[in-house]
């Protein structure tokens, strides 16, 4: 077995391994799982335009729901998708209840909205990051949300993450799909953009 090539671990498979260990009694692994997945869950909530405080509450409660229902998740491999779905639905519910933030269910392909309360001047100070930001801002809102969340996962996970976000099958992975294609076309047309 020494020569066997290890499978390349992805965010979803690492999460599955930790969750499986937690369920078989290794409680400390839950702490590691929280550290691993909280960033992608944070951006899932923020991509639905929740303010920072509300996003914190939503992410925190998703974890408690997971712990209280750990045994009801039949496939540990699905834990990443399960958490993203939980955060997305709860974000939508909370935003609707509060009426102060406009959540989207990512239906509107043609609405280009400015990204939520982010300090634009901070990026614009940096040339390449600033240009990427401006290109992202020109994408439909659901594409911004998709690419923002996907960026925190690994390539083999893209399709499952997109599905957990409620995006149509084929939105991304294994093919680029519309959103990534739009961005790539924009970047290709930008003479000042250099692929790294």
């Amino acid at each position, binding site marked *: 077995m020494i020569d066997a090539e290890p499978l390349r671990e992805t965010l979803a498979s690492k999460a599955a391994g930790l969750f499986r260990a937690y369920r078989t009694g290794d409680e400390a692994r839950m702490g590691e799982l929280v550290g691993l997945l909280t960033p992608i869950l944070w951006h899932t909530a*923020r991509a639905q335009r929740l303010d920072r405080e509300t996003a914190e509450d939503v992410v*925190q409660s998703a974890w408690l729901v997971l712990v209280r229902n750990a045994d009801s998740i039949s496939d540990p491999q699905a834990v990443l998708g399960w958490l993203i779905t939980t955060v997305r639905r709860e974000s939508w519910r909370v935003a609707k209840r509060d009426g102060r933030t406009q959540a989207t269910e990512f239906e509107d392909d043609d609405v280009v909205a400015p990204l939520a309360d982010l300090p634009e001047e901070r990026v614009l100070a940096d040339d*390449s990051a600033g240009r990427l930001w401006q290109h992202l801002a020109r994408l439909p809102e659901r594409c911004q949300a998709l690419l923002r969340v996907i960026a*925190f996962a690994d390539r083999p996970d893209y399709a499952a993450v997109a599905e957990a976000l409620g995006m149509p099958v084929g939105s991304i992975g294994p093919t*680029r799909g519309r959103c990534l294609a739009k961005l790539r076309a924009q970047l290709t047309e930008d003479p000042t953009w250099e692929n*790294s």
Partner: protein
Amino acid sequence: MTNPRPDETALAAGSIDAVDVATLQRIEALYGQLDPVPAGLIDRIQFGITLDALHAEIAELQRSADLVGVRSEGAADAQTVTFTSARLTTMVTISRISADAVRIDGWAVPGAGVTVDLRTQGGTQTVVADDDGRFVFESVPAGMAQFVLRGTDQADPPVLTPSIEL
């Protein structure tokens, strides 16, 4: 409505390549810098999960307005916070003794002989209240903390307070 670029459909049907992956990594870095996960959020979640496993009775915070000032600059020297639950009322006064430590004087009613755990991210301190229900933690590191109170009757569930920032 923007017109799709002629090559967009072909691009969309193509496989994700190294250029796309590099672009997504730059998007990750961009959002990580612009809208980072709030400081302490991961610790707070881990802490909350641990406490949730206790299945305790939850006490309510009565004077949340005071909490905001506990750690802010120029905060008063002492803050008093009250927690109430069905069986117990607990009042704690938090006094700053140094830049990163506080002293806690508590009073639980009815609290004679109640065991008080103070859980912080660095560990748990335990004291037993006197006959009047008074208890003291001489020095506690600043940060998130939560009280767990257990009565003398082992059959009663522990009372848990929300975490507060010391």
